């Protein structure tokens, strides 16, 4: 099983290729191939997990070179340790559920086959990302999941908001990747490799200076900030809800956005090598978590509430991992790593469930606005029950899975007072807004009778995944029980970083966490179910704050004003610069040459050509006189020849005599010639 684990991503890749090139025209076959591939992948993943459990989590690695150079080795390979195995199973499960669910949800969509091919491509990329054994390869798949996310967010691209959201997601992620790439390049430069284990060995051996390690840690974390929608790059995630709901469940809740958290956990040795980097991570996690939770309090779109909740929960995990890093750097014991990774798993299940439940509701009432819903419990039994399970789970109520993981995060933060308060506050808000959502959607009386009347329970293909995920939302957390269970040790003994350490449950913290969650639910119940206090009245009282939160802290507007518009303006200015200044210079050179040529032409005409013509004129003038010698009379020519021949002979005898003779001859000749000229032409003989 382990040796062939590389096949797990290959199944969906195969499905993608087959659908795109061959079966696109056959919708049923396409979806069957896609689902078949992921189910095989699921079975294989479970096999890998079991194999790994049976060898007590001993990691397995294979790699082949991608490009080999004296200094740089880029490789592709797989690294399977407990974290990988768990993630493989989680991704495969959620992916299978979502694909089955999509059969119902996407029913009748004209681009059905393409939808499934994209899902397969996504699953391939995500599984590849999880199975990678080095930072270079994780980055490749990192970008590929970004691509599929782009394609799926913009799946209904006729909607302007959807295509905008896809673009925003991609570009925002690219900004994070900007840091990520530089981080990886720094790893190549300072560790000489990107392979996890080699990098970790170098870091542990202290081969990288602390300052550089901090820089690498923060830059790598930039990637996670983008992908896991952490502040300040969280803005794309809520907009990404423009995609089909199953996509939101799979990509923007359970798996892809978890990739950032996964990467932080995977590279923990690097991050934990620097207390500063870890602190940054923890603080960013806390800020995101808090900010998203406050925004979620006021949203009215069911998917946006869930999106902000996702943001908030991811912040939670990031914070836990960051705190672990801080503690690790200071050689303190911490459960943060376990808490973060464990929450990653449980969150995947219950958040996928929440989204699929929300999708089921939207499918029934055709609106996203929770104030148009209400009382749906009576119409949608399975959906409401599973949704409630997920809400209880996320609120941290025992024995639901969220309780186990959330409790560990509380434990992890308990040694850091500031974070501890934040954690509890967020836990309270989470429970409050989740139940606000639940009560407004499923309880009370219908606020839009028309929509209520047309509501109905979703088909089996949609409810079945809800049930499966409902089960997992309850029981997945039980793997975190801190004792042996059927001969298997708990999650904390399977997935850990560094040395295995014993965790002792703290019943006091457990109680606090439950009480906080419970009180959140209670307040929500009082306001939205019992209507003990009017929500409108509360809203009126804190209107400025409400407005601030409802508008998402005005961060989008801030970015629009400070980054996007200036960039576009700069682009236009540069374009103007290019067309007028640089090209202007080139054209000026051309123009100048032409003008110069014109000037040269004048020079040419009057001076150079003048000189040439001048010579001509002189010749003409000379020839005017000389032509008179050309009498046309043969006897005259003969006379000249004879006179000259005599002169030559004479010259041999006496040169002076020859000259005198010639002068005399010329005089006689000239006189004769002139006399001939003076004489009028004889008339032509008839």
């Amino acid at each position, binding site marked *: 099983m382990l040796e062939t684990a590389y096949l797990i991503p290959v199944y969906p890749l195969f499905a993608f290729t087959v659908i795109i090139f061959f079966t696109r025209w056959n919708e049923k076959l396409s979806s069957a191939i896609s689902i078949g591939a992921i189910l095989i992948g699921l079975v294989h993943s479970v096999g890998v997990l079991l194999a790994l459990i049976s060898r007590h989590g001993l990691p397995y690695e294979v790699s082949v*070179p*991608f*490009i*080999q*150079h*004296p*200094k*740089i080795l*880029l490789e592709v390979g797989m690294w399977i340790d407990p974290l990988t195995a768990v993630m493989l199973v989680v991704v495969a499960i959620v992916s299978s559920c979502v694909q089955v669910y999509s059969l119902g949800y996407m029913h009748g969509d004209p681009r059905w086959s*393409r939808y499934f091919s994209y899902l397969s491509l996504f699953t391939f990329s995500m599984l590849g990302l999880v199975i990678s054994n080095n930072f*270079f390869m994780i*980055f*490749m*798949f*990192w*970008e*590929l999941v970004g*691509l599929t996310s*782009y394609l799926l967010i*913009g799946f209904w*691209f*006729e909607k*302007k908001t*959807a*295509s*905008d959201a*896809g*673009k925003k997601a*991609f*570009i925002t992620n*690219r*900004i994070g*990747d*900007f840091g990520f*790439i*530089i981080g990886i*390049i*720094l790893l*190549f*430069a300072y560790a000489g490799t990107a392979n996890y284990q080699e990098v970790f060995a170098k870091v542990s051996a202290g081969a990288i200076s602390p300052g550089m390690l901090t820089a690498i840690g923060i830059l790598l974390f930039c990637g996670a900030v983008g992908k896991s929608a952490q502040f300040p790059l969280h803005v794309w995630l809520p907009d990404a809800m423009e995609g089909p709901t199953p996509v939101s469940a799979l990509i923007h809740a359970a798996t892809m956005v978890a990739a950032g958290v996964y990467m932080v956990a995977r590279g923990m040795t690097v991050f934990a090598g620097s207390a500063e980097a870890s602190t940054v991570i923890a603080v960013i996690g806390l800020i995101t978590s808090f900010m998203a939770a406050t925004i979620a309090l006021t949203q009215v779109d069911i998917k946006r509430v869930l999106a902000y909740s996702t943001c908030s929960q991811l912040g939670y995990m990031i914070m836990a991992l960051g705190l672990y890093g801080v503690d690790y750097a200071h050689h303190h014991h911490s459960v943060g790593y376990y808490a973060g990774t464990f929450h990653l798993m449980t969150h995947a299940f219950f958040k996928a469930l929440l989204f699929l439940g929300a999708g089921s509701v939207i499918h029934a009432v055709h609106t996203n606005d929770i104030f148009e819903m209400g009382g749906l419990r009576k119409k949608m039994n399975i959906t409401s029950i599973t949704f409630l399970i997920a809400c209880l789970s996320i609120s941290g109520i025992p024995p639901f899975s969220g309780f186990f993981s959330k409790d560990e995060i509380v434990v992890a933060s308990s040694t850091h007072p500031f974070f501890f308060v934040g954690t509890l506050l967020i836990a309270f808000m989470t429970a409050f807004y989740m139940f606000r959502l639940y009560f407004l959607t499923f309880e009370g009386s219908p606020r839009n009778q028309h929509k209520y009347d047309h509501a109905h329970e979703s088909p089996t293909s949609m409810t079945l995944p809800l049930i499966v995920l409902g089960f997992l939302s309850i029981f997945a957390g039980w793997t975190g029980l801190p004792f042996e269970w059927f001969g298997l040790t708990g999650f904390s003994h399977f997935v850990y970083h560094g040395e295995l350490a014993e965790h002792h449950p703290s019943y006091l913290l457990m109680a606090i966490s439950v009480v906080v969650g419970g009180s959140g639910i209670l307040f929500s119940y009082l306001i939205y179910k019992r209507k003990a206090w009017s929500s409108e009245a509360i809203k009126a009282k804190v209107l400025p704050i409400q407005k601030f939160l409802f508008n998402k802290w005005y961060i989008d507007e801030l970015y629009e004003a400070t980054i996007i518009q200036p*960039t*576009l303006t*700069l*682009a*236009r200015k*540069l*374009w103007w610069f*290019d067309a007028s200044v*640089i*090209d202007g*210079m*080139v054209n000026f050179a*051309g123009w100048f040459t032409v003008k110069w040529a014109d000037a040269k032409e004048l020079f040419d005409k009057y001076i150079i050509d003048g000189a040439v013509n001048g010579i001509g004129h002189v010749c003409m003038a000379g020839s005017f006189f000389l032509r008179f010698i050309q009498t046309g009379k043969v006897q005259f020519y003969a006379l000249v020849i004879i006179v000259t021949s005599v002169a030559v002979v004479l010259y041999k005898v006496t040169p002076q005599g020859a000259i005198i003779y010639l002068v005399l001859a010329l005089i006689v000749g000239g006189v004769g010639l002139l006399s001939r000229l003076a004489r009028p032409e004889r008339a032509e003989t008839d």
Partner: protein
Amino acid sequence: MVDFPILTYTIFIPLIGAAVVMFLPKERLNAVRWTSLFFSFVPMLLTFWITWDYFFNFSGTADFYYTEGPVSWIAPINVYYHLGVDGISVPMLFLTGLLSFLSILSSFNIVNRVKEYFVFFLLLEAGMLGVFCALDFFLFYVFWEVMLVPMYFLIGVWGGPRKEYAAIKFFLYTLFGSIFMLVAILILYFGSEPSTLSIPELINSAPTFLTHGMQLLCFAFFFVGFAIKVPVWPFHTWLPDAHVEAPTAVSVILAGVLLKMGTYGMLRISWPMFPDAVKFFSIPIAILGLIAIIYGALVSMAQKDLKKLVAYSSVSHMGYCMLALGAFTSVTAITGCMFQMISHGLITGALFLLVGVLYDRAHTREIAAFGGIGAKLPVYTGLMVLFSMASLGLPGMSGFVSEFMVFVGSFTSGIVWFKLITALAVLGVVLTAGYMLRMVQRVFLGEFNTAKWGGLTEINAREVITVAPLAVLTIAIGFFPAPLSNMMKATIENLVQLIAR
């Protein structure tokens, strides 16, 4: 096979083709088209064979292979007919053979003066192939200039509305550069003892007989000649004009092969011949590359014309090559440069082909005029998105491999300023994503205007055939870059050592 002068055949078959086409009756369009296609198909096969044979037999060494000559050609000035290829020219030959064939195939829809068009195209192909094989300066220069003339006519006769302006600008600008090159060649000729024009000999001897100042001067002269061709910022403004006005196939050749000649010339001639000058100018060159990357990307963002956007993206992408060339100490960076040349040839070539496909149908390239085309032309959109993604450096495609190697190579080159320059250059990746996705969104996504574009037809089989090989190669290099890098490795290592002299 050893004695078979394969390079000569490769270069001269298109020339023979041009002669044959010239004697065909001009009314028989199909005869002209298919004959031209045949005469570009044969050299393509020959370049494939060279690549194949080179890869399996000679990859490990840095020498020249398939050498022909030196045969004395113009004895009084020591001009020899001398051809040969090594690890950096073989991929270029491959690219030229392939792109020429595809361009001729994509030119079947030319209707105006068909015969002349193909004659010029074959002449152009012969010139390009010659440049990549020539090992004698005279020969090199002759081929270099031979290319210009058909290019001038191809743009000037079959181009768009401002074709005369673009053609003259291209011709004069390039000629301006080559004059400097000629002067530098003469300096080398008269400086060497005995006077020679052989490129391999001059690579060995030039650093010994040139003074430092002379090296800098010769380098600068060659640089002007090559930089205009690349084009390096700020010599780039002929490019958008030429691209926008040129017919599709000519744009493909222009972007795919002609631009590469600049960087090829630098790698073949300037860099190994003037090592001191390279060291002296390395940082300014990298900064020019950086400016081209960022500036080209931002200017692309502001474009309203689809073809102009792709043209400016070329400026940005060739900037990566310049950045890598600046990092002369790193084998990885130079390999990245070669990868970038090849992948840019494939990707931008394909983008121009695709833009041409849309232009043939819609008769406009105005980005704002479109929208929602994706609903009507799914296959076309798929291809266009694929190549846009490749262009913005998505992993799994060749652009990513090359950009990443350029970054890693220049960052680890050991020259201090390069760390900063590289870090800034990575910003180009973000900007590229910005303009490419904006373009994709505005052309392909959104509401489809049925009234206006209802008549658009899907990309046809011939057009798919022209881009499919490029797509396959782009993805193949993206997933399996090792063969290509192994092929060039020995040559590039040797090159880096020559520069390090």
